[in-house]
């Protein structure tokens, strides 16, 4: 049987690219769902920290709440303000979400899962493309033709541009240690050195943490959408599906920055102590942890007031056990050993990302919000100088190690201490400055967008 040439071309195309296509479809289909459940988890955690229950009505323990929310948002009326720029109003949320999702494409969730082939500039691709979401925010704020929106958009632009600089410089620190931009190679470098980069450059990790919270517009840096001041900032005029696109973009972005931090600083998909063989029993942790969750579900099942919830808890527990078995099988069956790195890698990776996102949420529930000029000062007077010093310090440490044969840990420790000293100096300077600029008269002379 001979195929027509065009069909044959399509077949070769599919043969070459099927992994990418499948992963792309999966990302587009699954990320909104995951984002929805991240929202649920956030609400539940917030409720837990605030002495209340959170969503409980839709499904057992509110587990179907994201789906109900999505349905509600989908069927809401599509409002466009009269004087809005219709085209851009329509385009802006799409830009935001597409940017976040596209940047996910280059993230490697495990040694084998990745959409874009391991391109040369992987980590830059993730950062660059996710920063395009900024365009969606500015354009949305502009197109709404509302004061609150435009102030939110201007704030957001200034904030994101400033903190992207800090985040970029922090990343440079880890990239210097890795010596490559490829995502897989970065993780491999951490395996070869036998240490996560967070331990070699804690300052860079800290800067990236702060900057990434600011980049995702999360509290305490959520000024662009500060509800008590600007109603909802750039999203004020948005409703229904368009609004949910922004929302999805924001949560997808959280996953992206979490993944970047995990890849660069937390050892990506490596388990703790990947090279230490007497700790190989750590490989048993993923199935054990999942099984423990299942046991906890059974324990809780007895305390549920309604029968359906008891059944539900049992179902969850059994699912957990099944997953745990899947994770455990490759440990014992030699012929299946080849899927071990991928499977467990994804587990560790997602665990680290979840931890990172949990930190975000925790901060959100605890801290009040910065004021705009304080935010800019923090970015420009503390984080960016600190990041620059940190890059220099890492360079010095690497030279000390390679040229003068110093112990790596000693060099890293020394330079980190040096950077921390600079940080203390900067904070001190900042405090003095704020003390000096206390009265409203001098404050009026300062420009909030300075820098």
């Amino acid at each position, binding site marked *: 049987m001979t195929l027509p040439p065009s069909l044959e071309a399509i077949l070769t195309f599919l043969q070459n690219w099927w992994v990418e296509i499948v992963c792309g479809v999966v990302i587009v289909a699954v990320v909104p769902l995951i984002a929805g459940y991240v929202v649920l988890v956030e609400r539940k955690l917030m409720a837990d920290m605030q002495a209340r229950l959170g969503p409980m009505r839709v499904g057992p323990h509110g587990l179907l709440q994201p789906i109900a929310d999505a349905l509600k948002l989908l069927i809401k009326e599509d409002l466009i303000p009269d004087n809005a720029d219709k085209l851009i109003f329509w385009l802006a949320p799409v830009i935001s979400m597409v940017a976040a999702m596209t940047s996910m494409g280059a993230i490697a969730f495990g040694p084998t899962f990745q959409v874009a082939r391991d391109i*040369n*500039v992987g980590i830059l691709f993730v950062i*660059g493309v996710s920063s395009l979401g900024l*365009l969606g925010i*500015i354009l949305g704020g*502009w*197109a709404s033709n509302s004061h609150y929106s435009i102030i939110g958009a201007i704030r957001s632009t200034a904030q994101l541009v400033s903190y992207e600089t800090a985040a970029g410089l922090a990343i440079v620190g880890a990239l210097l240690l890795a010596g490559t931009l490829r995502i897989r190679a970065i993780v491999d470098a951490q395996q070869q050195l036998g240490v996560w980069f967070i331990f070699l450059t804690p300052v860079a990790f800290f800067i990236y943490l702060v900057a990434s919270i600011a980049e995702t517009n999360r509290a305490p840096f959520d000024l662009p959408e500060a509800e008590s001041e600007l109603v909802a900032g750039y999203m004020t005029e948005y409703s229904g599906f368009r609004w949910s696109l922004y929302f999805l973009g924001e949560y997808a972005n959280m996953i992206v920055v979490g993944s970047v931090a995990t890849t660069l600083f937390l050892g990506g998909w490596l388990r703790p102590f990947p090279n230490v063989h007497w700790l190989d029993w750590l490989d048993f942790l993923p199935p054990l942890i999942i099984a423990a969750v299942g046991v906890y579900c059974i324990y809780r099942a007895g305390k549920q007031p309604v029968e359906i919830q008891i059944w539900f808890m049992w179902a969850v527990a059994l699912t957990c056990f099944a997953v745990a078995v899947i994770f455990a099988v490759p440990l014992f069956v030699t012929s299946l050993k080849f899927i071990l790195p991928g499977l467990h890698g994804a587990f560790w990776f997602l665990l680290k990302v979840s931890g990172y996102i949990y930190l975000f949420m925790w901060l959100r529930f605890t801290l009040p919000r910065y004021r705009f000029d304080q935010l800019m000062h923090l970015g420009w007077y503390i984080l960016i100088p600190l990041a620059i010093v940190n890059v220099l310090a890492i360079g010095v440490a690497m030279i000390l190690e390679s040229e003068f044969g110093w112990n790596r840990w000693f060099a890293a420790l020394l330079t980190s201490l040096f950077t921390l000293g600079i940080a203390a100096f900067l904070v001190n300077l900042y405090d003095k400055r704020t003390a000096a600029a206390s009265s409203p008269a001098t404050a009026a002379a300062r420009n909030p967008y300075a820098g």
Partner: protein
Amino acid sequence: MLDSITFYFFAGVAVLSAALMVTRRNAVHSAVLLVTTLLATAGIFLQLRAEFIFITQIILYVGGIMVLFIFVIMLVRLDVALQHMRFRLQRWVALFVALALGVEITVVFLFARRLPGQGLLIQEPAPADKLPPNTEELARSLFSSYLLPFEIASVLLLVAMVGAVVMAKKRIDQ
């Protein structure tokens, strides 16, 4: 095959949105269309296997310069000051200049093809798989042969930064 499809797609998008960009009256629309053009050009760079330039284009041009543009457009609130083009004559002049330039360069291209020993313009680029890793290559070149221009560029950026701050700074004494 795939190469041509990508090329024609990105080229088409780039030219179309560029043409729309210079004709839109609304400056924000122009900016959005320019962003589209720049992204399409970035696609061309990727198709040329210049990954580093591709990502620089996205981060610097789209994420940096264009955001700055839109920021300024919003600050000076052009939406209030939308006006027609005043000089119809200028449009014809522009078209004439463009046509003249276009014809001239096209003719040069066509003649260059016919000249002996000028096979350059129809030469196939080297196969993609055999290319050395782009970023490393670029870095090596940038920090060895082009170190001085690199430093000069950084000085240029510094000067530009200082200049922009001085220019845009609000005078407090007013």
